């Protein structure tokens, strides 16, 4: 049975702890062609949208949930909103917890809203990433 609004509120276990490294920050900033000096040096700050790296890991739970029957390759991102409680920095160890916020089904299209909450292992809030995506179910 595919995803329905009955799945709103479903929350997945935290992702495996992710340690932010200087090397990954450099890689991510280079992918954005962003030469801001904050992203260089021994202990760089992560670019704000680096949160998407942990977000992607949290999304895995959604596509692994066979009850929802969602396929990543049939997904297009529709909107995105971030709130940062503090910047993500080298050495931070964080997890992401994904919750399903909304589901609307229109024919073959399923419009799904999710939020990933990033926290340190001590529970300190780092960022919240809310996304809406459109999943087009194969006929």
């Amino acid at each position: 049975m595919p995803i329905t609004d009955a799945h709103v509120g479903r929350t997945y276990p935290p992702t495996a702890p992710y340690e932010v490294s200087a090397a990954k920050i450099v890689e991510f900033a280079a992918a954005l062609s962003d030469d801001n000096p904050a992203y260089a040096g021994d202990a760089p700050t992560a670019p704000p949208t680096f949160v998407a790296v942990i977000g992607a890991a949290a999304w895995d739970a959604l596509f692994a949930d066979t009850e929802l029957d969602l396929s990543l390759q049939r997904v297009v991102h529709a909107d995105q909103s971030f709130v940062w409680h503090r910047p993500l920095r080298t050495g931070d160890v964080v997890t992401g917890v994904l919750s399903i916020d909304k589901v609307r089904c229109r024919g073959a299209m399923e419009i799904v809203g999710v939020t990933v909450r990033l926290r340190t292992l001590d529970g300190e809030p780092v960022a919240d990433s809310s996304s809406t995506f459109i999943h087009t179910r194969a006929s």
Partner: protein
Amino acid sequence: MTVMDVAVGTRIGELTVSLTRARLVRYAGASTDFNPIHWSDRAAAALGLDGVIAHGMLTMGTALRVVTDWVGDPAAVRRYSARFTRPVVVPDDDLGVEVHCVGTVSAADEDTVTVTIVVRCRDEVVLGAVTAVVSRGDLP
């Protein structure tokens, strides 16, 4: 002009970047978003797209440089949101496609400055309602 004395309507900066297939592959690896619609024409066509499209997060992350180049310290960014209104189709050639971003101050109060960014590709707006809120408290 400093961020502190900025007025609503002030244009803070602009940026033009070329998005190529190579850049999409690089962003896929860096972000770990391996959705094949960002590298396979076949997967893109299966969703009715005109070809491989850029990750929305690549376009959105790129556009934020208008703000972080202006404030200097990326830690000042507190909120950032956008709607992906039109897909950015990236051709399989060496030139790619240009994305143009212009940032303007749309609100300011004692604590924060809000910047609205207009993001265009092929003369069309591709991201909608692109707003970033920066904290004045973090600024030098």
